[in-house]
């Protein structure tokens, strides 16, 4: 809500109720749910960290310092406050690398989910609305994608086109659209039988207008819920691919990449592989909490079910 609205609202008591309500309503709903609040705070913090990485990271994430190789975290013998979470085999600061790594993880997670959402919602709307042979063909396409595990499909495409951030976003987008398509198709199948759609049809509203004006707005809430949860799984998938060496390539820092580096030093320096994994887990946990809360709020049918 903009400050201008607040000013207008302050002048007129009635408008206060009208204008300030949505924000307050959402805040109140959020505070009612413990996990929702925790999830929101985690996600907010991670986004803030990734946006301000430049200023809050204590060191250059790529700065190699042979004198500080494999320093343990600060609370252990030999650790220093200068490197709170220790350093890696090249003397790079782990905390700074994790902070910078959040940028790539979030960026890839969010953009690829948007891409998947656009493809999936489009196909789901078309498939559900037109039905018949179009639906049949598109659903066989969905079946085909479901038969190949995401990670396998991603591996094949990354092998052929070579790993890069853009390829990775496209790959994750192209592998994840299926869940949107199925969900949107299912919703459209039931929505299109409802009175308001029949009414629109009977007065001769064109098909694409029905899809855009009547069907699309009704699938938005499911879209938001599934997108949030999708970001969580995509972050894990990206980390897995980077771990396998086919995701984000050095010198760009990614959580999966730091983890992969740390694997070779497991016997001597446990912190290398531990901290990035903890970071991924906490981030994904926050997103799941936020997504579950959104589902409860946006879709009353599923409340308390899981």
């Amino acid at each position: 809500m903009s400050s201008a609205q607040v000013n207008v609202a302050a002048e007129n008591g009635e408008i206060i109720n009208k204008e300030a309500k949505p924000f307050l309503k959402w805040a109140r709903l959020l505070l009612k749910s413990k996990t929702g609040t925790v999830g929101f705070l985690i996600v907010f913090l991670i986004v803030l960290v990734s946006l301000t990485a430049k200023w809050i990271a204590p060191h250059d994430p790529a700065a190699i310092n042979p004198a500080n190789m494999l320093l343990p975290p600060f609370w252990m013998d030999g650790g220093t406050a200068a490197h709170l979470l220790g350093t890696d085999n090249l003397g790079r600061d782990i905390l700074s690398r994790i902070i910078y790594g959040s940028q790539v993880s979030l960026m890839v997670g969010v953009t690829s989910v948007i891409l998947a959402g656009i493809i999936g919602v489009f196909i789901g709307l078309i498939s559900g609305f037109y039905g018949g042979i179009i639906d049949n063909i598109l659903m066989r396409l969905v079946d085909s994608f479901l038969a190949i595990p995401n990670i396998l499909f991603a591996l094949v495409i990354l092998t052929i086109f070579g790993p890069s951030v853009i390829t990775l976003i496209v790959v994750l987008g192209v592998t994840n659209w299926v869940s949107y398509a199925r969900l949107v198709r299912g919703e459209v199948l039931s929505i299109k039988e409802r009175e308001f759609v029949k009414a629109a049809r009977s007065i001769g509203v064109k098909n694409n207008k029905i899809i855009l004006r009547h069907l699309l707005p009704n699938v938005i809430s499911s879209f938001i819920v599934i997108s949030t949860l999708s970001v969580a799984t995509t972050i894990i998938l990206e980390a897995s691919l980077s771990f396998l060496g086919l995701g984000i390539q050095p010198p760009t820092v990614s959580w999966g990449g730091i983890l992969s580096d740390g694997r070779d030093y497991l016997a001597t320096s446990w912190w290398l592989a531990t901290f990035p994994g903890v970071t991924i887990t906490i981030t994904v946990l926050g997103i799941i909490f936020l997504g579950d809360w959104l589902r409860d709020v946006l879709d009353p049918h599923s409340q308390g079910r899981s």
Partner: protein
Amino acid sequence: MVKYFIRRVLQTIPVLLIISFIIFSLVFVAGDPVALMLPEDASFEDVENLREALGLDRPFLVQYGSYVVNLLQGDFGESFRFNQSALPIVLDRLPATIELAVAAMLVAIVISIPLGIWSATKRNSSLDLLATGGAVIGKAMPNFWLGIMLILLFSVTLGWFPVSGRGTMLHLVLPAITLGTGIAAEMTRLIRSSMIDILNQDYVRTAKSKGIHDFFVVYKHAFRNSLIPVVTITALQTSTVVGGALITETVFSWPGLGQLLIQAVNTRDMAVVQACVFVIAILVILMNLFADLLYRLLDPRIKYN
């Protein structure tokens, strides 16, 4: 039933065709293998001759047609790394992956069934919170990272289990737990919500009101029925399980499909990559078919149309 089964089997044909088309197109786009096969100073004529000999000068659809004919004969091409047909190499690794997947499923079942029932019958108890909380954390943890942490704790620090490889039962424990906990997380949530649904049904209330002991209500009346969605959704998880196995195998150097695939990907051994994709896709399709039929067998209320 038989009619339905036949129709479902026939439905897999277009799916397999679409998969083969996607894979073929991707490999086609990937470029000319001839450039890799000939020395750099090969003449234009040599390149053309080899392309002709391999049939690469033919139109896209003609090439795809002969590709499909080869696939039907189980011919995915030669692996240049092993100098032999790709399919037997892949099938050779399949038992190891299946062994891991089955062990992981067992781990998942052992964890999730008691936990799911327990948390559903004692809703909002501290155990329920622990179970649901554990399930969420299990879902949030990257599988491969859990594997690394288990190696760190049980192999490196305590020395109880071997770090990697396959052979004894001890080798199987950590990979199975790694892959199994991820599945268990999903299954616990499923069993819990399925049980909660069933416990609210009229027949369960009737059984309770007749004075039947809670234990029998839960196990005889509720649990059996709650298994219907659980069993089928579990079978539908095959794709996730196999996907997870691919990474778990890499972490533990488990000599299955996953390890073979990653090696093939790194050496660009496309014949093996393609054979892997098809074998896994067929496995997933068969399991989905199985899940569908099982669902109908377990629940006679479902009609076959």
